[in-house]
Every structure is written in structure tokens, then in C-alpha cells.
């Protein structure tokens, strides 16, 4: 091996090593970028977080359901429940009436803490509401104009339960049978 070829060989090795290092760096950056993109949304740093206990509740026409949930305060200051306001949109105004319950009763929510499961709001469904699923969006705003994530929730209106004729017949037959058996036992005794 000549001096020139030896030099060229070492140059190739050096360049190869540098390219390998650069590739590792690029791959690391891609990995970090990918992690940020694909990370679950729950790690997002909303100053207030609204976590409903259930995203959907069932009722019948004319019924009222109460949504409960927890609130996390990361605003940097303590809050009371009376500092928290619920805002709603996207609901069917002919079917759904929503009332804020949060704040009654009042409670304290220090910074970096989460509340117990509390009543958030009630949803009353119109008496003439047809069966179906009624969705709406809700978020919390605080007195310092911090906003929570927006949550889509729903109320499922089921048809009013009416006993089927066969079920009623079975029930009546059973009751009559019980009555007859009871009478026979009484006569024997």
C-alpha cells in the first residue's frame, strides 16, 4: 500500500465515521420528533383540565341526567369552584337544556391539584325528544381567562320502556298461579 492509498483509506474511514455519527444524530432527532407527534394528548399542558366521569349518559324523553367529573388546576394560582365557568356549544336547542351545577357547593382547588368527582352540569331532555344520540361540546374557563380542553359528550335518549304483551301475560299468569297455590295451602292447613 502506497502512501497515497493509505491516506485515501484513512480519509474514507474518517468520512464514513462522520457520516455514521451524523446519521445517528438525524435518527435521534427523528425519534424525538416522532415521539412528540405521536405522544398521547393527555400530556398536553392545559392550565385547566376537564375530565368527565363518562362521555355519554342514557336517559329517556323528559329525563334529566347529571354529568360528573374531575378538574385539574395547573394555572399557577388557587381557584375556588366559583371561579370556574362551563361553556357549551353544538347542542340541539329544541331537545337539550343544560345548566351548570359546578360551584354548588363551592370548594377550593389549590394549584397543581385535582378535584374530587363533582357534579358539573345537568342535561334535561325535552319531553317530546325522539330517541337518538345528542352530542355537544363543553369546556371550562376560569376567572383569569384560562381555558380547558374541549370535550365532546353525548346524551343517549332511549325509547320509553313499555312492557311487551307476552311479558305482561307471563307476569299475570305467574301472579294468578301464586294466588291459587296460596289458597290451596291455606285450605289444607
Amino acid at each position, binding site marked *: 500500500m502506497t502512501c497515497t492509498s493509505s491516506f485515501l483509506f484513512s480519509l474514507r474511514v474518517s468520512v464514513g465515521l462522520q457520516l455514521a455519527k451524523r446519521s445517528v444524530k438525524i435518527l435521534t432527532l427523528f425519534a424525538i420528533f416522532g415521539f412528540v407527534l405521536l405522544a398521547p394528548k393527555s400530556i398536553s399542558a392545559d392550565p385547566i383540565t376537564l375530565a368527565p366521569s363518562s362521555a355519554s349518559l342514557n336517559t329517556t324523553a323528559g329525563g334529566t341526567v347529571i354529568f360528573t367529573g374531575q378538574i385539574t388546576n395547573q394555572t399557577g394560582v388557587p381557584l375556588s369552584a366559583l371561579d370556574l365557568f*362551563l*361553556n*357549551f*356549544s353544538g*347542542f340541539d336547542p329544541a331537545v337539550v337544556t*343544560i345548566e*351548570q351545577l359546578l360551584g354548588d357547593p363551592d370548594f377550593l382547588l389549590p394549584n397543581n391539584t385535582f378535584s374530587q368527582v363533582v357534579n358539573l352540569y345537568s342535561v334535561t331532555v325535552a319531553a317530546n325528544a325522539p330517541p337518538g344520540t345528542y352530542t355537544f361540546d363543553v369546556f371550562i374557563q376560569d*376567572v383569569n381567562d384560562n381555558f380547558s380542553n374541549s370535550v365532546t359528550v353525548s346524551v343517549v335518549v332511549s325509547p320509553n320502556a313499555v312492557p311487551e304483551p307476552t311479558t305482561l301475560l307471563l307476569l299475570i299468569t305467574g301472579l294468578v298461579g301464586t294466588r291459587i297455590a296460596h289458597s290451596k295451602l291455606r285450605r289444607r292447613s
Partner: protein
Amino acid sequence: MFLLAPAPRFSTVAPGLLNSDGQLTVSLPILNIGTADAANVRVTKISLGSAVRRSPAGLPLPLGILPVNGTASISPRFNTTGLLVGGKYLLSVQGTYEANNLTSGFAINRYIVLPAPSQSPVVYLKAHVDVAVQPGIWTYTIFNDEPVGSTQFIALFSLEVGSPFTVTGVPVGWEVETDNVSYALWVASDQQSPYPHHIPPGGSLGGFQIQSSKIGSESTGYLVAAWNHQLDQAGLVSPDLVLSPGKSV
């Protein structure tokens, strides 16, 4: 991951509050912080705890278009009877809007603290207007709520209207000017003192009437103005809201 459809979202900012003359006036800005414009925004319910609402006396109250990052303001008034200074009460505003070819509902809430009573920076005429609504007919009665002995006599009633109409009622001693589309202006026709057709303090006058092919009502602005009989010059005014033929109903 998925993309959410653009939609309006409503919020509020800290309202202006004035506790004066036994009434709380709330100046509440309503914001669209969503990603789509809200058209035909109408307020259908305003409440403050269990307080009696004095204004607007009738709803709905049209707010028009609320674009993204746009603001509209409402100024409801409530009786303070039964409310405690320093107490927190839930102000709730509900309504409807149109977006994505769909009419939807919104509800916004805010606890407010009742401030101590203070003097209003602007002195308004003490007056109010009642309306009797029959299908297609709106009849107004003006009340001069100034204390007996006041020099403020009502001499003008201007009404904003949202749809075409005709004036069908003018009280005796009054005359009307209108474009039959957007306003009606009734004025007492007295030219010289003692102005016998002005509405005196403690008095009232009915018979201001309009008709429209629109059946539904919505809250629109009005102005009642007084003539100061002592100084023989224009007096105080009282702006507020009252039901009139609706633009969108």
C-alpha cells in the same frame, strides 16, 4: 389522529357591573373563540341566580353574526332585591346560532360578585315601555317613572324595528314619522308650554301601535326622551330594549 370540523365556541370576559337604584346592570362581552363564524346568533335566556330580570323584558335578543374572534355585548339588568353585596351569583346566557348549515345551541356561564351600590355615572330618565303582543300587532304603553314633582315630561318615543311594518296607532296629541322598515318615531305635537300631551311624572300613555306580516317578536332598541318643563329644553333620555316584529322569526 383526526381533524375536528371548524365550529364556533363561545366564552365570556369579565363583565362590567353597576349596582345602582336597586338594579344591577351587567355589561357582558360574548366572544367566539372557535374556528368558524356563528351566524344569526340569538340570546334566548338570561338569568342571574334567582334575581328578577328587568331588561331585556322580552327575548330573543338578536346579536347578528359573531365571526371568529369577534365579540358581541349584552347588557341585562336585574333587580337586586334578595341579593347580597359581595355574594357570588351564576349568570347564565343561552341561545342559538347557525354554522355549517345547522342551528345549534350555546350556553355560557359566569359567576359574578354583586358590587356595592354606587351612583350611576350617567343619569337616565326613569321610564319604561310595556308591550302587548298579539299575532302581527304590537301595542306599546310608555310609563314615566320619575317621582311626582320631577321636571321630566316624556315627549318622544323612538322604536327600532327589524322588519317591514305599518304604524296603526298614534295617541291623541302625538304624531309619527317612520320609514316603515327600520324605525318609528312618535313625538308629542305640542308646540308651546304647558305641553298638555307630554306624559307627566307618574303617568303613562298607551296607543302606540304597529302591525307587521311577521308573527314572531325579537328584542330591539328603543329610546324615550323627556322635555324639561322647568328649563323648557330637552331633558333626560332612557334607552332600553322591547319586543318588536322580528327580522328572523
